[in-house]
């Protein structure tokens, strides 16, 4: 076991992780950024199409209207302090990025192109790189990070656990997948920015790396996870062909949706907004049509965008082109679409500085909870990442600066980590391969913890996840040579199981339907708003409810 030191350790390198690193490094402290894939290329930021923001284009728009939209969309679960931080900082953070080289897309009049997105009361979505906005932001942040003498990056390193001394997080225990060398990284603060949990479900828009590692690491360090039942299903994702299953179609507000009877069913659910409604409502409507037997053969509904095809081609060229290459030309064809796991609104509880209740532990981006409440507005994911990435980076650097010395790591921590790694890297010939365990978790979550939930389904999911935990002791790992996908899968499966249990437990104690959590046995809203809270103590999960320091919405 090798020991390494850094002032600030950032785990994850999407828009949130890289923002954290860039802003933390402004303090001249040493920042180490890890990614289990490739730095800046392995998170869901990559696929983000637009970013909601205030800026020079905001003639009628202002902070209060943005705040009001986030609050309404959050269904009463968004924390005021987080919403205010987002609306307050977004303009300055995007300005920083443009000063560092990000070029926002412009319309034919050379003005910054601003478009409307469902759920926002005013047009405030801007883009870069012709709708490859996430990529554009990542390129800018990577360039900035590479130019800093204080930032070191490290590819292909997975975090197995966080290390604590007393109540303080003092580092992380990681494995370099390239040579299977384990390291204990000692640091003054850790920023978790590992993205979301889409891979807990069979169909997802998320990259393969979104295996919920950060939620699991947060739990293991003793942090609270809030509202983990609030999983956003992107309502309009490709169902077929299989090679692009889960791919998001952003232009649903330019489209008409039909069930298998040929009926434009949104007329029944949202007579005024129709398809141009929020993601939670649209996903529940589509899932209800399918559940009631009015879906397509592959379990979706039909999307028709032919009437607005010119606008689609202009605003969403990547989506149009990719589907066209797979045989779906929206000018002439209807596409089979359905909900896919897309975004975790819940997450590790943070304050407006990105700090958790655990000293030394900060969280940013999708891994943090409490901002988006019960429904994240479209294009607010990148906004969240750049604002709270910066805040977590700045606050963690300040805390690190105030520490007189590096917090201690003792021999017993090294010994525990050593034993754990030996167990992980020892070949075993059991009954089930790690990828099969991951598939089992996905099947359970897809069947019972998807868009539409029931008390009985949640109970079954809990029992079945316990069975997966038993099976996990009987894994087959034959390949323990460096860069073993089986080793990676086995570590990810452990993170996935812990997070899946947190989602199911949180869903069980929310005795109402709110936001993305739709339980047909509790179909209405409760009279009061509350967060569900998951916590882990000595490996045992416990669940409770807590009050919301929220805005006006119910």
């Amino acid at each position, binding site marked *: 076991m090798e020991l390494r030191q850094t002032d600030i350790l950032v785990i994850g390198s999407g828009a949130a992780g890289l923002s954290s690193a860039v802003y933390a490094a402004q303090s001249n402290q040493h920042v180490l950024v890890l990614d289990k894939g490739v730095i800046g290329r392995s998170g869901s930021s990559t*696929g983000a199409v637009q970013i909601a923001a205030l800026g020079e284009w905001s003639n009628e728009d202002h902070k209060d209207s943005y705040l009001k939209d986030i609050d309404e969309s959050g269904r009463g679960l968004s924390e005021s302090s987080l919403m205010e931080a987002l609306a307050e900082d977004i303009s300055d953070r995007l300005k920083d990025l443009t000063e560092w080289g990000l070029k926002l897309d412009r319309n034919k009049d050379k003005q910054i192109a601003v478009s409307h997105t469902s759920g926002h009361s005013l047009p405030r979505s801007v883009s870069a790189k012709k709708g490859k906005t996430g990529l554009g932001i990542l390129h800018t942040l990577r360039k900035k990070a590479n130019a800093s003498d204080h930032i070191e990056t490290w590819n292909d390193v997975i975090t197995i656990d966080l290390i604590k001394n007393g109540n303080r997080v003092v580092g992380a225990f990681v494995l370099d997948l390239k040579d299977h060398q384990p390291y204990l990284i000692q640091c003054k603060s850790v920023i978790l920015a590992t993205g979301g949990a889409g891979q807990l479900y069979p169909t997802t828009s998320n990259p393969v790396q979104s295996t919920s590692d950060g939620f699991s690491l947060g739990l293991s360090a003793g942090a609270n996870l809030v509202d983990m039942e609030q999983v956003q299903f992107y309502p309009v994702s490709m169902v077929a062909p*299989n090679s692009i299953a889960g791919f998001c179609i952003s232009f649903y507000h330019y489209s008409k949706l039909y069930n298998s009877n040929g009926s434009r069913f949104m007329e029944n659910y949202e007579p005024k907004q129709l398809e141009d409604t929020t993601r939670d409502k649209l996903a529940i409507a589509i899932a209800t049509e399918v559940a009631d037997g009015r879906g397509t053969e592959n379990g979706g509904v039909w999307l028709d965008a032919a009437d607005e095809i010119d606008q689609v081609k202009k605003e969403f060229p990547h989506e149009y082109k990719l589907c066209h290459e797979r045989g779906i030309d929206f000018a002439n064809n209807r596409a089979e679409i359905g909900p896919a796991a897309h975004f975790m609104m819940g997450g590790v509880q943070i304050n407006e500085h990105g700090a958790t209740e655990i000293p030394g532990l900060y969280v940013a981006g999708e891994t943090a909870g409490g901002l988006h409440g019960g429904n994240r507005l479209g294009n607010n994911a990148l906004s969240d990442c750049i604002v709270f990435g910066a805040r977590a980076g700045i606050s963690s650097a300040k805390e690190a600066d105030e520490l007189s010395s590096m917090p201690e790591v003792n021999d017993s921590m090294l010994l525990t980590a050593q034993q754990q790694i030996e167990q992980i890297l020892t070949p075993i010939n059991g009954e089930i391969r790690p990828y099969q365990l991951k598939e089992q978790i996905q099947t359970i979550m897809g069947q019972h913890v998807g868009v539409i939930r029931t008390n009985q389904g949640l109970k079954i999911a809990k029992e079945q996840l316990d069975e997966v935990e038993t099976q996990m002791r009987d894994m087959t790992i034959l390949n323990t040579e460096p860069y073993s996908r089986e080793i990676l899968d086995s570590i990810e499966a452990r993170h996935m199981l812990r997070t899946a249990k947190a989602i199911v437990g949180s869903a069980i104690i929310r005795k109402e339907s709110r936001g993305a959590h739709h339980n047909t046995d509790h179909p209405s809203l409760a009279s009061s708003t509350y967060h569900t809270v998951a916590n882990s103590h000595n490996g045992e999960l416990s669940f409770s409810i807590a009050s919301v320091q929220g805005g006006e919405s119910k």
Partner: protein
Amino acid sequence: MKLHVQIQRSSGKTDHFEVSYGPEMTVLNILEEIYRHHDATIAYRYSCRTGLCTTCLMMINGKPELSCQKIVETDDEGILTLAPLPKGETIKDLVKEM
């Protein structure tokens, strides 16, 4: 339907696999099939599956292509040939240092 896949491994040898496939499968789908059902030691990178992150770039039938985007095609002899990109350090099999 069976597909003959030939992969240049980092051990220096070339491995051959007979993989079940359907007409709409991408090269990445084929690699997933090989990892699951033929050889658990095969190493390859990918992330977004939508042609954006470019981490799945490799030589496919002699040309650099994204494995997540490339629908399976064989050469004149009916073989799909995969190899790592020629430039830069290879970590293992099809995985490059990035």
